[in-house]
């Protein structure tokens, strides 16, 4: 599986994601600066967490206009897997690869802690290595993770089985406890929790590892 990680000014989880991908695939991903207009030939594009452009205007809104993003959208159309984590999820909603938006947390606080999630497989390679309906523990670290979409969109997401990750105990006010969603083709995943911070047993639980294992199996 060949992968790359997009790097924006203000990304701060790009190395965590690169380390996780290197650990699982055995090969370091290519790091792609946001000013690039073409992408290397890869099977997976990682859009990392952080605070791209200082979260100015809206989280992810300025990064969504970066020169590299049309290439990401084009690759996504071709079926290249795209994984957006935290700020990466915000960027993917801003460019319209995923519906909805991530708003300020309901209690207005930045939340950094491990939380419980329920995983739904729903035929996606991102979740294929998890047991269906299994409960996992991943870290969250965000100020703007409150998922919002109109009722029609939420009904569609649920009806089509596109909600891959749900909070067990909703920490941020997200509609219908949504923590992560996939596109109808199940080739794009955006989630607020950080699977890339939960892959190395030396650093604690490894519930993020199956996400990368599933991709590895599907794309190798």
């Amino acid at each position, binding site marked *: 599986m060949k992968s790359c990680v997009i790097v924006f000014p203000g990304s701060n989880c790009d190395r965590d994601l690169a380390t996780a991908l290197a650990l699982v695939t055995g090969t370091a991903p290519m790091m792609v600066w946001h000013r690039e207009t073409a992408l290397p030939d890869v099977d997976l594009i990682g859009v990392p967490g952080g605070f791209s452009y200082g979260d100015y*205007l*809206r989280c992810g*809104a*300025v990064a969504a*206009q970066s020169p590299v993003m049309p290439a990401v959208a084009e690759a996504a159309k071709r079926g290249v897997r795209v994984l957006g984590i935290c700020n990466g999820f915000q960027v993917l*909603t*801003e460019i319209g690869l995923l*519906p*909805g*938006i991530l*708003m*300020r*947390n*309901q*209690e*207005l606080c930045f939340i950094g802690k491990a939380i419980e999630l329920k995983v739904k497989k729903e035929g996606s390679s991102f979740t294929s290595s998890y047991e269906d309906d299994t409960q996992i523990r991943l870290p969250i670290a965000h100020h703007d993770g*409150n998922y*919002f*979409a*109109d009722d029609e969109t939420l009904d569609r997401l649920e009806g089509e089985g596109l909600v891959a990750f749900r909070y067990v105990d909703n920490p941020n*006010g997200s509609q219908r406890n949504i923590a992560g969603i996939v596109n109808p083709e199940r080739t794009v995943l955006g989630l607020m929790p950080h699977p890339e911070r939960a892959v190395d047993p030396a650093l604690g639980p490894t519930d993020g590892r199956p996400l990368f294992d599933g991709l590895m199996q599907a794309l190798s």
Partner: protein
Amino acid sequence: MKATVHVTLKDGVLDPQGKAIGNALHGLGFGEVGEVRQGKLIELEIDGNDPEAAKARLDEMCRKLLANPVIERYAIEVAS
């Protein structure tokens, strides 16, 4: 020309920041304050002297970047 764009949350979208501002105002003794909604004001200098053309371009700017239609609406003013 000077243009002003007001970006506000659509009705029905919860505004936790507006709520916090309202609570703080109540704490300061401004009991008459009801619901508070927070938005953004963006001021732009625009080249040219055709306000209608500028408005059309500003509308495009709002749709492409300045506002997110999922939760926000916008209003444009151009002072020539």
